[in-house]
């Protein structure tokens, strides 16, 4: 299982080996893959999306079973990854883990899919499960610069989401905002680094966002939904791919 460079760069100054870890918002299990590769004792991949849960489980099961020591560090990753991983289907606002039970938390590409109200509730919960001295890794995107073509697609995705569900689909929080936000939840800021610049929004990303916009547009009433859906498709075809913006990585630690 290949670990994305974004995750490798986000974790390379973090102490993960032998730690109890939580990937908050597992997505495709990218951070889970990185945590396991870095020798995590246990990874809880928490997601409320059944497809994501299945993808994460499958990636870990498919990878690392070739009998090789892929890390070259003697850590056993053959046949062992499945045992070290627990995929939990749960809402991040109520994580099914006890207080003070986690040493490393990753929120890799999580915050941008969380609206401000939910973000506060999730931050409370992350602070609750984190043990004293725990590390928090927050990787996300700065707001797009004016004129970015993908910005139009994301605006449309947000419009469809607002109409269908009453909240935005995407919120690109500036690094400085999340830094102060998590500091407000008791985390001591350690460092910021640039993970990607520019951010490559490939055809695969663009079409995934267009699909999501279209599926939310389908929940909108009548003509509006149809118009949003058609526009999403057209935008995706027009944009193709675009490299723009910045993905940053923040690291925090909870006081002992």
């Amino acid at each position: 299982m290949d670990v994305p460079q974004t995750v490798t760069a986000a974790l390379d100054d973090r102490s993960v080996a032998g730690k109890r870890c939580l990937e908050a918002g597992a997505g495709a299990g990218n951070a889970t893959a990185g945590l396991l590769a870095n020798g995590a004792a246990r990874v809880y991949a928490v997601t409320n999306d059944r497809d994501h849960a299945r993808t994460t489980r499958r990636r870990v099961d498919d990878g690392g079973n070739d009998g090789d020591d892929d890390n070259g560090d003697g850590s056993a990753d053959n046949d062992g990854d499945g045992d070290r991983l627990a995929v939990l289907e749960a809402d991040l606002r109520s994580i099914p883990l006890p207080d003070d039970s986690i040493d490393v938390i990753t929120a890799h590409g999580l915050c941008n899919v969380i609206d401000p109200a939910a973000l506060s509730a999730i931050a409370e919960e992350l602070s609750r499960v984190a043990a004293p001295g725990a590390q928090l890794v927050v990787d996300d995107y700065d707001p797009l610069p004016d004129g970015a073509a993908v910005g139009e697609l994301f605006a449309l995705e947000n419009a469809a989401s607002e109409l269908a569900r009453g909240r935005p689909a995407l919120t690109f929080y500036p690094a400085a905002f999340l830094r102060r936000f998590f500091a407000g939840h008791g985390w001591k800021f350690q460092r910021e680094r640039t993970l990607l610049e520019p951010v490559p929004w490939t055809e695969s990303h663009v079409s995934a966002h267009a699909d999501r916009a279209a599926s939310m547009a389908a929940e909108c009433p009548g003509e509006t939904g149809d118009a949003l859906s058609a526009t999403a498709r057209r935008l995706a075809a027009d944009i193709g791919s675009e490299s723009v913006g910045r993905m940053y990585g923040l690291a925090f630690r909870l006081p002992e």
Partner: protein
Amino acid sequence: METRPLGDTGHDSTVMTFGAIALNWLEQEGADQLVEHVLDYGVNHFDVAPTYGDAELKLGPKLRQHREETFLGCKTQERTYEGAWRKLDRSLNRLGVDKIDLYQVHGLEYDEELDEITGDDGALTAFREAKEQGLIDHIGLTSHGDPSLILDALDRIDDLESVMFPLNPVVAGKDDDEYDYEAVLARADEKNVGTLGIKAFAGGSWPPTDELPEADRPFANWYRPVTAPDEIRERFDFAAAQGLTSVINAGDPKLVTMILEAAADYDGMDEAAQRSLIERVRHDDSPVPEQLHH
């Protein structure tokens, strides 16, 4: 053009090496012009092989005219003592020169081949004799085989002074050992062995021949190269930024000028941009379902 020390050879190679296979698809007059063009950019390291059609013959005239300005690499796919001697003589004749600066074992692929070349009757015995006789100056090895094989070769051949291997954002994004050419780069650096990068401009495989017959391919490379100027530039920058001594151009002569321009302008690539390129290529070719994030 920036130069970097080629391991312990004492030669500083330009950050781009001219892969003279490009001459194979040109008539002699065009070949002469391309060599002058490459020299105009200051490129001082040339690489050729007897298996590149008649590239050796076409390189000959301009190489002899500019012999003092060029560090000449050549190679052989022969694995035996006799075979290596025969091919070295032939290359010297075809190139029309007295000496090859860097003579390389070409395209090592199997463990048995490493055993064979390092044996008493192996190619390296011929290489060492040729070195004593002043016919070659340095010994190198090339492979696009398993990185572990190249690592073995680095450990087993004490007088190895350069290794040539693939390095690009596609392989850099894969974690499996079979793609771990970064480990080769690291070991070569430790041992102060020069590093030459190939396949920096590989975009992927050609479509199957029933979809696109070989005769209809628009480029001579056996892989599908990236061809847009911006892509060429970022691929060059990426390869050079990994720390290779020198990056070899894609073989098709139509691409050489773009690569020369990229090499002449090279001034590093920051890590976020390197990751951006790896990430982009990874998603172009990802088995993981479509993702919203990176």
